[in-house]
């Protein structure tokens, strides 16, 4: 999966779970600070990424996923590892 493709899908998941307009979801956007998520929203987001990308994100890694680009980087790595 190409990075652009991953980014687009991440944006869609974030838009759906956090109820924000897709234009606000830039690569730099941080979930809690910029997109108004609370700590439970972030847990929920990680679960939604797992479902959408069919990957397992261990708790030890989930802490790294605080912004859109970090999520894309992590997923890219995970998907490559899987392939």
């Amino acid at each position, binding site marked *: 999966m190409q990075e652009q493709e991953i980014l687009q899908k991440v944006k869609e998941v974030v838009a759906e*779970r*956090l*109820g*924000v307009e897709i234009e606000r979801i830039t690569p730099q956007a941080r979930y809690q600070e910029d997109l108004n998520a609370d700590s*439970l929203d972030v*847990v*929920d987001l990680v*679960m939604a990424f797992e*479902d959408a990308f069919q990957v397992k994100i261990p708790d030890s890694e989930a802490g790294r996923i605080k912004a859109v680009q970090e999520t894309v980087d992590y997923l890219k790595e995970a998907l490559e590892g899987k392939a």
Partner: protein
Amino acid sequence: MHSQRVVITGIGVITSIGQNKEEFWQSLAQGRSGVTQISAFDPSSLPVRIASEVKDFHWKDYFTSKEANRLDRFTQFALAAAIQAAHDAKIQEGGEDVGVIVGSGVGGLGTLLDQEEVLSQRGAERVSPFLIPMMIVNAACAQIAIHFRAQGYSSAPVTACASSLHALGEAFQVIKRGQARLIIAGGGEAPIVPLAMAAFANMKALSFRNEEPQGASRPFDLYRDGFVMGEGAGILILESLESALERRAHIYAEILSYACTTDAYHISAPEPSGQAVVCMIKKALKEAALSPQEIDYINAHGTSTPLNDKIETMALKEVFQDQAYAVPVSSTKSMIGHLLGAAGAVETIATLLPLDRGIIPPTINLEHPDPDCDLNYVPQRAISGEVKCAMKLSYGFGGHNACLILRRFEG
């Protein structure tokens, strides 16, 4: 501090027959039933397939989709009703002297069941982190406090079908003793889910009149066979008279007294002599300094179960003696079904209709008088009448009884 007088200055309500005060009052005056075949899910495998559902709930008037996803249906109803009530009372932000007392009977049962299915189908890792904050019975109370930044007194009474009348009573007492200036009080409930429908049916608490939904809730009728499950919320703004006068708020009624007692007899059956209810009504009359003759209207608990309606009638006769046959007593559950923990607050709003507008809501479907239920239940059609003082009664599984006495405000 001297004791404060307490008045009602705002109303919010969500039911099957009205999603705001005006719609609700109009439907009550017209004697409309909100009971139909269940539409929220396929009920065909259930013994009871009828309920009083809130259809086409206008949630978008109150929440964003993200907010709605984080609130169980019972909290959505309660928060929507609270937003209406605050708007009606023309209040904005909370503060340290503003409280919230909002109860529920069963809380977020729908969310709990959805997540139980996730657990069994997809495993523990897929269970939503929002399950607990959505299902806890105090979620409605907390979400209302958060919405209005109400930082004063809060609690969430749980006394089954008396929950929200206990909430109003507690709010009355807290304001009366000066611990809060204003309280957002009432209850919300959303119990129309297959598990609860099956469980209440197996208790033989529900009406099995599947073929005749609108005639199923028939309090005090000889052929009543159980209650009809309902859903929704009722929220009232209670405040000190001083505060209401200062704000020049519209006052629907003054609360004169509140009493509660306990059967201490059985976890679901009412105590057969009704003595705890008799004792409660006497206490409430005494606190209000009223004689039984001064009560002009009673909104009964009137569930439409064989036992409740008979024992409630007996208790009223014991307290009111000859006057019992004259005073109008109606059960608005005949139209909206039984909203469990939200019933007391929604029916208090029904009790404000005669106080505010002089229209006494009927007990619909009362066609065949029961020799054991021989009071003036305002059968079939609303009547107009001068109502100065009114009484609201609620009883819950567990033997919890609550009573509120209201008076039209005349300065």
